[in-house]
């Protein structure tokens, strides 16, 4: 019988990501993350770099924005706007689905 190894991981949010970890997970430079935070497009816009910690939501949003910028050569503000709309769309779809519509 083949013995199966079960891999365990960390839950992001209980252990949040640092700036470097977020950048690596999105395949971007840390400067990209910093610029997007300073422009208010990502995370909570906190100016305290040392205390920056990122959640699952930040990771999903940063990857989405980076892909939009890359695929469409979109301005960061436009990618952020699209990300906002996609997030809102997903929330509304979830509500419609649970309402059986």
């Amino acid at each position, binding site marked *: 019988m083949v013995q199966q190894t079960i891999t365990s991981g960390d*839950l992001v949010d209980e252990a949040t990501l640092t700036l470097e970890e977020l950048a690596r*997970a999105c395949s971007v430079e840390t400067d990209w993350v910093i610029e997007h935070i300073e422009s208010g497009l990502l995370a909570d816009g906190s100016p305290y770099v040392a205390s920056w910690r990122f959640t699952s939501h930040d990771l999903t949003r940063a990857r989405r924005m980076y892909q939009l910028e890359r*695929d469409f050569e979109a301005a960061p503000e436009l990618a952020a706007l699209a990300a906002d709309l996609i997030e809102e769309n997903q929330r509304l779809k979830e509500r419609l689905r649970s309402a059986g519509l």
Partner: protein
Amino acid sequence: MEFKDYYQVLGVVKTASAEEIKKAYRKLARKFHPDVSKEPDAELRMQEINEAKAVLSDPEKRLAYDQLAQQYHSGQDFQPPPNWDAGFEFSGRGFEEADLGEFSDFFANLFGHGGRQRAEGRGYKIRGDDRHAKVVIDLEDAYLGATRSITLHAPQVDAHGRLSSKKHTLNVRIPKGVKAGQHIRLSGQGNPGISGGPAGDLFLEIHFTPNPRYRIEGRDIYQTVPVTPWEAALGGSIETPTPSGVVKLKVPAGSQSGRRLRLKGRGIPGAAPGDLYVELEVVLPPADSDKARQLYEAMAQELAFDPRQSKGG
């Protein structure tokens, strides 16, 4: 392995200019963007489109691919001839082994080794890139925890230093308390490092199987429970299934449809567990027998009740 016609994928002619390729790519990327596309195979199509763009928008890769494409057509069984890429150096950043997880075997076999060989030749220790995958679980799994098998296409290096894509199955423990959209980070399960560098991490994004019975908001769960008119009017104890099992619920007397009851801490578990909100839905018994009709008629005569008047209508 089948030969892929990247020109066909992007819907452009073989003589298309760089600008035409970019335009065709953007048009398709918009159509098949997984966040918005309604096409059932959007993710797969997006992968193909990204691959096609990666090759056709890089002059060196395109030239090498064009030479191969003279001998093959789309769907034809294909093995890359030895040293098919001799004389080409793929210097474009971004489509080396870092991205192979998101590309097909065909792409990985053709273009997967360039970056690695160069990096190893220079003796750099480079950490492998992080990878991402989605994993779908049932809501109940978030209450109890679960194990899921995940199959990934992982880059593998053979004895000759060539990179190819190989299926790799991981059994992953899904800890209890996960939320939709949350990530599990598996250290060292991403792409392998180069020249002895550490492997990257694998991020799994949690999604729940759609369940019409529940609505999930963070750790809070919303669920509608049908009740009879007498349970709603007189109050009573009812049993209802919830994601954590059947619970006994006290329906307060005088409840109406839409009344929301909170079961504290019965949402998704965690350091701060969510709550379960039960919304009552009063369901009328059908007047499909003499007895039922008599009861409705008795109510009509005995109860001075006009919901339109009481609502000011």
